[in-house]
């Protein structure tokens, strides 16, 4: 199967600060791939490069077979912060990505509105972001990301700012949601549990300047549920990853 994203030998430094030393990552169609690593190891920089916001010093970004260095608008990108605009209602926030793609606001609202139920937001269309809870804001941001491109999505620690309980239920919710979609997802996290639970494959990054330290294929069968967290296979992988993290 052709890869949706092929990251080849990317190197990036900011001045004398080497952020990414040499990183290659590939994302297959309809797969969920996580990038796991310590804070500040250049994971977000890698996403900035894939989305076209930053240019690498060296290396290539191949998206759907085409070299896309410095080209924006190819993939949808969800940042760690929800980045919802406080002056727009949740519905209009979700519409932004459709508006950027050239839809008129009326059409955009019609289209976005049909997804509110699926994203657990129905009834809150006319609320402002500040009226919503953290979990709801993240789902609204995810909806906006999904509406821009349901093909390839980059999710940068979408649940990083949530409390442990909300986070767990968001992970379960996301897995349920993805059953309906044909998206390929690249996901950043520094939670080992989250990475194993959600992913088909995990790339373990080293400290800055980052290299890929190890790759894990997660073969835990789907559908996964809350019992997955305590299964033997899960803990086996978890132990391996934690041991590798300890070495640093």
């Amino acid at each position, binding site marked *: 199967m052709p890869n949706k994203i092929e990251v080849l030998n990317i190197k990036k430094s900011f001045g004398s600060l080497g952020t990414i030393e040499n990183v290659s990552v590939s994302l297959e169609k309809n797969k969920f791939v996580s990038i796991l690593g310590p804070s500040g190891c250049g994971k977000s920089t890698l996403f*900035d490069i894939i*989305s*076209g*916001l930053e240019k690498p010093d060296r290396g290539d970004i191949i998206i759907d077979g085409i070299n896309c260095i410095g080209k*924006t*608008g190819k993939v*949808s*990108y969800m*940042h760690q*912060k929800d*980045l919802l*605009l*406080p*002056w*727009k209602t949740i519905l209009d926030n979700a519409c*932004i*990505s459709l*508006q*950027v*793609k050239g839809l008129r606001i009326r059409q955009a609202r019609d289209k976005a509105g049909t997804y509110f139920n699926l994203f*657990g937001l129905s009834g809150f269309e006319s609320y*402002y972001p*500040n*009226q*919503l*809870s*953290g*979990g*709801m804001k993240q789902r609204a941001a995810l909806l906006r990301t999904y509406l*821009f491109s349901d093909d390839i999505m980059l999710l940068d620690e979408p649940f990083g700012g949530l409390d442990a309980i*909300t986070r767990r*239920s*968001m992970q379960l*919710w996301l897995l349920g949601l993805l059953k309906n979609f044909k998206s390929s997802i690249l996901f950043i996290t520094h939670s080992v549990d989250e990475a194993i639970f959600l992913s088909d494959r995990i790339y373990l990054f080293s400290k800055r300047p980052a290299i890929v330290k190890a790759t894990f294929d997660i073969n835990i069968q789907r559908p996964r549920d809350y019992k997955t967290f305590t299964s033997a296979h899960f803990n086996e992988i978890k132990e391996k990853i934690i041991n590798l993290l300890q070495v640093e």
Partner: protein
Amino acid sequence: MLIAIWEIISRTGSVPSYILPAPSIIIYSLFSNFSLMGRHILVTVYETLVGFIISVFLGIIIAIIMDGLPFVKKVIYPLLITSQTIPIITLAPLFIIWFGYGYLPKIIIVILICFFPISINLLQGLGSVDIELINLLKSMGASKYQIYKIVKLPASLPSLFSGLKIAATYSIMGATIGEWVGGKDGIGVFMLRAKYSFATDKVFGAIIIITVLSICLLKLIEFIERKSMPWVAYEKNDTLGEQI
């Protein structure tokens, strides 16, 4: 309390009424002269509003141009600052010479006073928009126009309104200064005439009118501010709680 003491002092005759007339006399003269003042008030309000509205457009356009094109900012910004160091009262006679005794020189003075705070505040607002929000739209491949329309302009509305409020409080004063230096009618002219005839009560009356007009304009802007930024009302509210 202050007004009561003022009233007593004036009534006892310790201060002559051509220096400090009693508040009751001021109010009385305000009402009895209102038909005469009405025309002057209308002229001043007209000059202020025209000047203010032009300043709003001019201020917004200049701020956007400076924000969007850094080299233009480099050229214009020092000029703007310098222009503000020239006392407006010294320019007013020049405008009278150039543009005559009509409404135009007053409107120009209002513009000169008002557009600066509007422009500078908006410029600062545009410059301090969260870079991550802009990057989010850039990552979607949004055009410059879309970035301004969707993020930058709405995000800098609070700055724009604080500029508008500063401008509003100065605007009536600007028109009055213009009338003072030379004109046929307006509150400034009325004040000048009252001053020459030592009608101190009328001077105070004019001051009250100017204050009331300024406050009205300020309140109008605050009203528009609330209406155009409905989300602000929710910012201090509690969230609905975790509803997962």
